[in-house]
């Protein structure tokens, strides 16, 4: 017995509009018209969703010192737990191994991505180099 698919599916609440969009139904229609069904995938063109990252201006690095002997090195903590203790160990290392190096400990003000103009001015006035610690 031939089953009327449209009637059967409508009895279970499937809209005829869904049937019209059914690939299988589309194939049946094509076969009725005498044409073979095509299953080749179509290619489409879609848009890149990305925004605009900033261009990067290369920043030349500062000239290096000939030596640290006799120089002032700022040891700057970015505020992460333990950074102050680690920098203190660096100060102890210099005292033991390079006693002519003067170390100055500072905690950078604000959060880890805030600028600290006061500290920058102090380094400019009295420092020669900086060691900063640390990301966790």
């Amino acid at each position, binding site marked *: 017995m031939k089953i009327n698919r449209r009637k059967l599916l409508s009895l279970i609440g499937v809209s005829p509009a869904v049937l019209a969009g059914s690939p299988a139904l589309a194939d049946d229609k094509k076969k009725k018209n005498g044409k073979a069904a095509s299953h080749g995938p179509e290619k489409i063109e879609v848009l890149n*969703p990305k*925004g605009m990252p900033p261009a990067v201006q290369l920043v030349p690095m500062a000239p290096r010192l000939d030596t640290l002997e006799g120089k002032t090195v700022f040891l700057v903590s970015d505020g992460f737990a333990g950074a102050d203790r680690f920098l203190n160990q660096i100060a102890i290392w210099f005292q033991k191994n390079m006693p002519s190096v003067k170390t100055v400990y500072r905690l950078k003000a604000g959060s880890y991505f805030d600028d600290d103009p006061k500290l920058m001015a102090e380094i400019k006035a009295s420092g020669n180099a900086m060691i900063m610690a640390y990301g*966790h």
Partner: protein
Amino acid sequence: MQVEKMGFPTAPLVTIAFKDLAKSNAASRGMPLERVCFLPHPMTNKSDEEMYKVLEGNDPVTNKPLMPEIIAALTQPLTADEKKTGTISPDIGPPTYVGTQDELQRLYCDNNLTDFMPIILPTEEKVEAMLKGTSHKPDEVIGKLSAAQGAQPSWTFTVRHVAINAVMAGASPEHLPVILAISSTGQPSLFSSTSSFSRMVMLNGPISDQIKMNYGIGAMGPFAEPNAVIGRAWTILSKNLGGCGVPGLSYLGTLGSNFNYNNLCIAETENRLPDGWKPFHVQKGFKADESVVSIFSGWSLNNVAWFPNMPYHELIKNWLTHFFSFGTTAATLLLDPTIAREAKEKGFNSKEELSDYWSKNSKTPAWLYWDQHQRELKQGQQGVEPYASYLKMGDGEIPFQRFYRRGRPGGPVDANPKSSIEIIVLGGETNTYWAGGDFSYVTSASIDKWR
């Protein structure tokens, strides 16, 4: 890098867990060859002696002795590459992609352009249809977005960019003004922190009914299209328009948060607020008939199903006393209208009155208080009041009210701090339940501006 720009050599130290982030951060700031030296991870739990041994050991990346490497970072002459200047323009790929639907779904997914669920592919036709949802021109620059402002690069984006991402999320043109408003805040849904931030986004005003947001039964669940796609769109656009969500580079959340899929996209149940209780956006200075989106930031939410032998406002006060999370000085309470109604019957004529009551009457567990107040602990041990009396309270509750906006640590203290507890009313009144979490209010934006 500021110090290098001043003309002084630096040696930044970073633990190895952040090796890729440190290098990409240096590159994005213009110093790709910054002389970063690496340490083992983690460092925070090492004793002083162990830390000294790290100095006597090797850099875990280069395997070279660490202290000589730090000294060389400051003294070894610059190479020709380190002296280079100029501009580098990042490559974001071609303006379009061509392929079958399956190929394109795979391409977007494999390139972290989605939330790893299938998307609506953004054809020109679909984006043009989406743009009909706003009167703003497609090329209008909306603003900047970054995974962590100040620490990560800020990307620029337009109305058209947002429309493309809105299509991907499955949004309709009527949702676009909301998504544009969210993007206009400059807040990413995927913040870079290791702590795995979550976000919440809430709609107020006529927009909620206009686009059929669900704020009844299942208000925080997957039960209405706008609730689903708007929250989703924020995550997808954060990735593509702000460079957010690249694990190890712009996203470091060690556990991650499942909230990031939808960002707790909700609408307040304004038509069931008790008399005198203002909608959230009105509390923040908007008019009742304005459509507004508000952003909250936090980490966690307790969904509390509990029938107390006390009024709910007392139960929640006790919950606030013992609630502990990363953020211990702010909270947001989401109350079913039945709970709000009971609070009104108990005499709280506004959200502000209830919020003030909670801030004033909640306390702090002794263990938490002393953990956060080490200086006060020493003072208490020396007999300084009130800390000495607090110590005598033992392991109980210290009468310290946490939930006030007192100002940033190290900054000026607010003499008249306001309550940091926000209240939102939503839900379908099928039971007297509520949720509380460490979310704090960030900002609001007009949706009407983007219609």
